[in-house]
């Protein structure tokens, strides 16, 4: 094995042209006389040729996959057209007229001090038209132009005519806390949940019947709810507004159960599985 290894290195150096002339001559002489060296040399020569053929085939396959011929001139034409288009677009962009500045429209401004007195003449508080300055940002939204006005002033009617704007009455010293009704009115309405569940529930008379053959049933007639079974834990009756009207549910032992109104027949209580409905009921549950 060591001999082969030594031969391999020697042969490798020879095959890759790394030998000096004198070493090459000596090697070639040894090849003639040493059959082991000869055998190993032929094997290695075959392997190296095989590697070269493999690499050559790889490069040829790569070149074979390259698009040439007609495709090249087509590419030239396409590139030329593309360049023309780009050039045209560039000319258009750089020579296009800039959009005209949008004319300032008068808008009501916030007046910091509004104190018209009876002794004064009938003054009209106006908003002066102010052209937007270059550094001011202007936005166009829904055909409205909002310009940040810099100043406003009180002018006498004898001054140049400007459009008068009626400002809303500003309540001074407004304190939100003093007007709880106002804040209530401003609160977002709940969804369809009926928080005032005194309507049916208040009128519902709940009766529990333990000594019957029914273990977990109910009957709901004329606002009377009869619960059949041993309801030893606390239960809660809930009412929910829905597009179909008011629905009644019972919460017992961690689950919600539907109560159909005017159910004369003794019916088993069935759990509510609908997660959305359960979530709604949880919000109104005490």
């Amino acid at each position, binding site marked *: 094995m060591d001999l082969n290894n030594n031969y391999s290195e020697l042969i490798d150096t020879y095959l890759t042209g790394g030998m000096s002339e004198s070493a090459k001559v000596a090697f070639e002489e040894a090849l003639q006389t040493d059959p082991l060296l000869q055998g190993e040399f032929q094997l290695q020569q075959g392997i190296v040729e095989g590697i070269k053929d493999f*690499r050559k085939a790889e490069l040829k396959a790569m070149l074979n996959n390259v698009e040439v011929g007609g495709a090249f001139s087509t590419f030239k034409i396409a590139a030329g057209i593309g360049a023309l288009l780009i050039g045209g677009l560039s000319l258009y962009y750089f020579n296009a007229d800039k959009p005209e500045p949008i004319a300032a429209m008068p808008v009501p401004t916030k007046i910091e001090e509004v104190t018209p007195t009876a002794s004064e003449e009938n003054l009209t508080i106006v908003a002066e038209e102010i052209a937007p300055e270059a550094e001011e940002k202007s936005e166009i939204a829904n055909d409205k132009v909002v310009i940040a006005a810099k100043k406003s002033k009180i002018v006498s009617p004898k001054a140049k005519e400007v459009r008068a704007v009626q400002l809303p009455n500003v309540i001074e010293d407004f304190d939100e806390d003093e007007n709880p009704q106002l804040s209530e009115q401003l609160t977002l309405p709940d969804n369809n949940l009926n928080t005032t569940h005194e309507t049916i529930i208040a009128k519902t008379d709940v009766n529990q019947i333990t000594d019957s053959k029914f273990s977990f049933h109910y009957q709901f007639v004329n606002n009377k709810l009869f619960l059949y079974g041993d309801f030893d834990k606390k239960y809660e009756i809930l009412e929910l507004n829905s597009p179909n009207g008011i629905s009644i549910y019972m919460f017992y032992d961690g689950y919600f159960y539907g109560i159909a109104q005017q159910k004369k027949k003794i019916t088993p209580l069935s759990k509510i599985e609908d997660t959305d409905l359960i979530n709604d009921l949880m919000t109104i549950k005490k």
Partner: protein
Amino acid sequence: MREVVTFCLTAVFKTKAVLFMKDRVILEKIAKGDESALKYLYTKHYRMMLKLVLTNSGTEEEAKDIYQDALIVFWQKVTSGKLELTSKISTYLYSICLNLWRKELSRKSRLSYEEKDTPQYPDESRVESARIIHECVDELGGTCKKILSYYYFDKMSMQEIATKLDFANTNTAKTKKYKCKKRLDALVKGKYSASDFLD
């Protein structure tokens, strides 16, 4: 809009740069083993080289073959660092193509002349050996294939191989090459005994 125009202009100019690579740049790329430069050359001079063979009794298939062989010879010379180019690449390639086609033409005429006297049979044992070695090379991992290809065919130095394959240093490349070669030797020997390679 401005961004779109800028992007398009940049794309066009970059494309232009690829389309018109200078010879110096091509040589630098090939010296590093960049195959994209070879592809570029192939498309650039395709028509000219094919015309050489087609106008000298060759078919398109033969012309393509000769041109690819010529390019690969050129590739080997550049990657091995043994080429000192004193002319344009196109001129040099043209001369390689011309030489290869002349050799092919004389081989064909010699073959047709010899066929008249004695039937020619391919050396099946050599063909079979080549096929088996090809199979064994194919069985090697990607890195081994690359190292051995770059070393024996492209004749790249260990430093160049280390750079191209992102090895830590030349010693790593040397060790890797040694191991890959040993593995290939074992694969081939596993399929053939040494006696099969003796006459």
